[in-house]
């Protein structure tokens, strides 16, 4: 067997966490501490030892050349840290790794972009930083410009770009990175919806081009689609690695809470509307996390509006155990919202869903303009079928079920009673 493209051997990463605040210090602190040292030594040993945590521990696996591996896990599981180590941005505390092939890393897009430089200049700069050669960039400039759709602005300083244009240009450079090993972190979630689709298509093409890819994403459907294998991380350890569909199933079943209500983690950036809380009920309004197949499912989402907004759209996506988005529901409220707390509620027809477990993604946005809050895997519920309407195992047939009041009528039938015998 050929050498794997990536081999990790006992990688561990320890971070200092502080009651001490930020990790960098000031000279003043150091000087004062040194002066105070004899005093503290007299008082009592090391009362306030700095506490260390392992962000990653004992990570060992291999990625064969040409494989697309997804890293999944909850926030703080260590996915990004692991990617940073592979990208050599962070250094492991112990263990080692070996990467065979030219490595390109996309931990972020637009690294090194300078607002005073023109689009073209930034493409060259960013490309150089990502490790492209000048010749490569010249050859690809056309494609990059075309992809980014910023043709007429290439000689305008980037500071005059809209944020959408900047993001498109940055992604376009990244998307044309031509390395044998690609390390990518959440680069799918950029731009407006149309551009996201384009990015996804490009990622797909990159994944299928035979290079080795390690891909971190919260978007399970993307992982399912792009990756042949996936590794599941939990609290700094690889708990499972295998076929991506299996790993996604395990992740969804073990790591999302099947409770009738859940608080939603706040967004990294407050943009006006924040989804706060979600709860599930049966048709009678009782909290429930398990729903009978034929019964409606009620959902209530509480959100807070921090700044006045003129229009709000909320989307609800249900994801099944395979990471497939099976159902999407969406509503635009064309009214002005003054700051305050709002509750949106509504009812799903339960019978649309085959029995199984579903995870809920929510997003609040100003349609087509910007996202306020994208919250994934906020809650999970089970659809069960205890009362049989008929004998099929629904989930064996299809992922959704349509209750259609079918009619039947004879158009050409012989009325001969004798024939039936």
């Amino acid at each position: 067997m050929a050498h794997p493209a990536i081999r990790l051997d006992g990688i561990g990463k320890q971070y200092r966490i502080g009651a001490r605040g930020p990790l960098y210090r000031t000279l003043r602190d150091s000087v004062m501490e040194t002066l105070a040292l004899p005093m503290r030594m007299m008082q009592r040993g090391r009362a306030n030892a700095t506490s260390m945590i392992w962000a990653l521990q004992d990570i060992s696996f291999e990625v064969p050349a040409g494989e697309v591996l997804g890293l999944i896990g909850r926030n703080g599981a260590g996915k990004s840290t692991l990617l940073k180590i592979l990208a050599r941005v962070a250094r492991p505390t112990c263990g080692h790794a070996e990467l065979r092939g030219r490595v390109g890393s996309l931990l972020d897009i637009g690294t090194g972009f300078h607002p005073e430089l023109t689009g073209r200049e930034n493409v060259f700069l960013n490309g150089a930083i990502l490790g492209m050669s000048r010749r490569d960039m010249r050859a690809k400039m056309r494609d990059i410009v075309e992809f980014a759709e910023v043709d007429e602005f290439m000689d305008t300083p980037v500071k005059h770009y809209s944020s959408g244009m900047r993001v498109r240009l940055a992604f376009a450079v990244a998307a044309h990175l031509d390395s044998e090993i690609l390390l990518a972190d959440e680069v799918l979630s950029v731009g407006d919806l149309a551009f996201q689709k384009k990015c996804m298509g490009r990622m797909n093409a990159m994944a299928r081009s035979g290079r080795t890819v390690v891909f971190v994403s919260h978007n399970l459907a993307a992982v399912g689609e792009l990756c042949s294998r996936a590794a599941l991380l939990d609290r700094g350890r690889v708990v499972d690695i295998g076929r991506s569909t299996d790993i996604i199933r395990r992740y969804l079943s073990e790591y999302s809470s099947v409770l009738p209500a859940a608080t939603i983690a706040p967004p990294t950036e407050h943009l006006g509307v924040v989804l706060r809380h979600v709860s599930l009920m049966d048709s009678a309004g009782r909290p429930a996390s398990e729903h009978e197949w034929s019964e409606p499912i009620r959902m209530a989402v509480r959100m807070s509006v921090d700044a006045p907004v003129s229009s709000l759209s909320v989307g609800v996506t249900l994801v099944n155990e395979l990471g497939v988005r099976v159902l999407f529901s969406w509503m635009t409220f064309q009214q002005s919202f003054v700051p305050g707390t709002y509750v949106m509620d509504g009812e799903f027809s339960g019978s649309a869903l085959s029995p199984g477990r579903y995870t809920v993604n929510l997003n609040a946005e100003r349609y087509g303009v910007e996202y306020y809050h994208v919250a994934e895997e906020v809650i999970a519920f089970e659809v069960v079928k205890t009362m049989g309407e008929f004998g099929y195992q629904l989930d064996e047939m299809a992922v959704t079920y349509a209750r259609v009041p079918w009619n039947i009528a004879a158009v050409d039938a012989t009325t001969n009673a004798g024939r039936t015998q």
Partner: protein
Amino acid sequence: MPDDTRQWRGDVTLIGGSAEGLLARVSEVWHSRGVLGFLVWRDLKVKYRQTLLGVLWAVLQPVLMMTLFGIFFGRLAKMPSDGVPYPLFAFAGLLPWTFVANAVTDSGNSLVTNPDLITKVYLPRICIPLAAVIAGLVDFAIGLGVLGVLMMWFGQGVSFRVFALLPLAVLMTMVAMGVGTWMSALNVKYRDVRYALPFLIQLWLFATPVIYPTTLVPARWRPVLLINPLAGIVDGFRSALLGTPFDGHAIIASIIGTVVLLAMALWYFVRVEQSFADVV
């Protein structure tokens, strides 16, 4: 296809362990000289974007300093200047000094002002402060041109000594790289270095014979002055340009001082750079 288990010929990246020797680092910087070039190019592009203002500033800064020094130290304080007109004397000293002061400030702050280059991508980090120093050389060249004009104005001729400018400029760049990379690394670790730096540079100005000639310092204190590697370099510049007495000992002290400084700075940088991404 033959079994390629043993003969992989492409790039191999080793992470962790003892894979990061000094030799490997040097070759790494050499391989990423393209990025280094681009970082310099970026700094220059941004600085000279408004061409006139950029160049004008490069001319104005030393000229204004020279005028100020000329008035206060030359005229009012009657500072001796080794027999050349004081404005020329001051300018020849200010030329390397302004370069070193600006380069050290820029490169000292280069890492903390470019956190993305550390946390989002891997490139040999030393390229970042080095690029800031190299970009400063353009200002230096412009200043040199201004000095040429001034020398013609004052009717100051040059001798063959002018060829010493090149090695002196190299030495000056090495001093700036040494202090600059050191400060940049310290700045990541201790955030108040940023505030201490201007003050340190001011002290350094007084420890360097920019305003005053070395001959003003009593002979028994001169060895102390030579601890500062920039002292011999500034004297060397004057000697090369204006023909003031040349002190071989001072230059040798400078060369030794510069090499030691640069080696220590690089050693420190390599030692702490591993933890940059965790801290920035």
